[in-house]
């Protein structure tokens, strides 16, 4: 029984390898694109609000409430506005990825000692220069941790995006679940799920590398 399952699964993998690779690649691309958008927007919001108590609370609370909306519901709500396919998927994913990034940007910037910012000011750096040359580089490891958390979050949610016709491994999971009992149902679901897990692990490893490459040696403990 076991042997027949594995040989069967092996056959499925070889026969569908091109499909699987394409789905995996799409899955990765959709996650990376939405992550990039979320990083730009999230860091931007973080920079604007970190020093303003009311705006800071509002944006963190808002992003927190946003995260509690079930992803299936949000994606469904996006259909009338954005239609099906890549666009609603990326919009939805970017939305969920915002919270950890905004929150970590705010935390990272708040952790820069006031004395360091004051000495930057005292040496004649303007606020913008201080932000880009001192505050953001010092906050960077914390910001990057937020992006990393968002990346993991997006990997899982992206699978659900197949519901709105989004690309990626979710399609395979849905195909398997909707054809339970048929010959390849289990294989589809299994490939989709394990694929998402493997991609998530790979991306996480990539973040370890990015962190090493982009963090100043002076900040590493």
């Amino acid at each position: 029984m076991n042997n027949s399952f594995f040989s069967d699964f092996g056959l499925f993998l070889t026969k569908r390898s091109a499909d699987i690779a394409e789905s995996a690649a799409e899955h990765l691309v959709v996650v990376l694109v939405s992550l990039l958008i979320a990083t730009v927007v999230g860091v931007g919001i973080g920079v604007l609000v970190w020093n303003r108590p009311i705006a800071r609370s509002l944006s963190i609370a808002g992003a927190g409430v946003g995260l509690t909306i079930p992803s299936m519901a949000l994606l469904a709500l996006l259909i009338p506005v954005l239609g099906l396919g890549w666009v609603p998927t990326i919009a939805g994913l970017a939305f969920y990825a915002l919270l950890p990034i905004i929150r970590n940007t705010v935390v990272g910037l708040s952790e820069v000692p006031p004395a360091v910012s004051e000495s930057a000011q005292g040496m004649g750096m303007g606020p913008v220069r201080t932000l880009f040359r001192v505050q953001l580089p010092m906050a960077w490891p914390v910001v990057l941790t937020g992006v990393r958390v968002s990346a993991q979050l997006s990997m899982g949610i992206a699978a659900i995006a197949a519901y709105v016709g989004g690309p990626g491994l979710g399609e395979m999971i849905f195909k398997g679940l909707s054809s339970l009992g048929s010959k390849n149902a289990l294989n589809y679901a299994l490939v989709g799920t394990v694929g998402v897990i493997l991609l998530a692990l790979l991306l996480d490893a990539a973040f370890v590398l990015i962190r090493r490459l982009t963090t100043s040696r002076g900040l590493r403990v």
Partner: protein
Amino acid sequence: MSETNSRPAAGARIVLRDVTKTYPGQAGPAVDSFSMDIAPGELIMFVGPSGCGKTTTMKMINRIIEPTSGSITIDGEDVLSLDPNELRRRIGYVIQQIGLFPHMTIAENISVVPKLLSWDKKRTRDRVEELLAVVELDPKTYAARYPRQLSGGQQQRVGVARALAADPPVMLMDEPFGATDPITREKLQTEFLRLQEKLSKTIVFVTHDFDEAVRLGDRIAVLSERSQIEQFDTPANILANPANDYVSQFVGHGAALKRLGLIPVNQATLGPAVPVRGAIEVGINDSLRNALDLLVLSGGTPVAVVDAHGRVVGSIDIERISAVLGAEIVPSALTGARP
């Protein structure tokens, strides 16, 4: 003190006129009508208790805090009409927490202002090496290190080097040695004095430590609430003639001892050379305070005074030390107390 005038005038003249700072929502001003003339190359100490407005006053000079009213000029130029960032690049700024940038190497930290001033790479690199040597950190060892790899004292030296990077005529220092241990602090103070001897910057130095003020300052401003100047004079004059009870209280006990710490042995009229008893001898350029310290150990018998080559040139005893204090500055204040 008097040698201020003989130093090369590398610093700038700072004039504060009726400088006032009122924070919104506060009844009284934090700094009330502060006026002061600071000569080029002078090292001025602001001393006072916490919250008296001494730091606020200092920070108005480089406009980290904007004055509510009054005028500040540096070499005749109105500080308030300049672009604040341009202004600050010409004023060295050292704070107690040092504020080195942890993500930059020591060399990069020192290069910040030269880069802002668009110096070329070679000039910046040469300047970094020169400054590290000035603050006694070997450039080969330290230039590529990060702040966290340095001790507190070393970090503070880098802080001073960074402030000196573009050779600013004016330096503002806010308790720069306050967070270091006593031994490191004394070493940093000695090095700082030696440095100032060469550089002759105009320095405003804030401290709450009166002994530090006596040790370093050309003139000391003793400040009370709302940054009111209770007395502004040389350390010797303040110790000999405190203007009022507030200043006396600040001077604290042992004013005479503190004065002796400022006067070298060669100011005293030495007695006849005596045979050296044991190893008790004092250098002619040491302070009278050290001489007194040794006299206590010698049991009161005169201590031999030796010159730089170790030759005995005379002796000193308690009466001769007292005579120096009596003769210094204001004989009238002490003649009543002396027979």
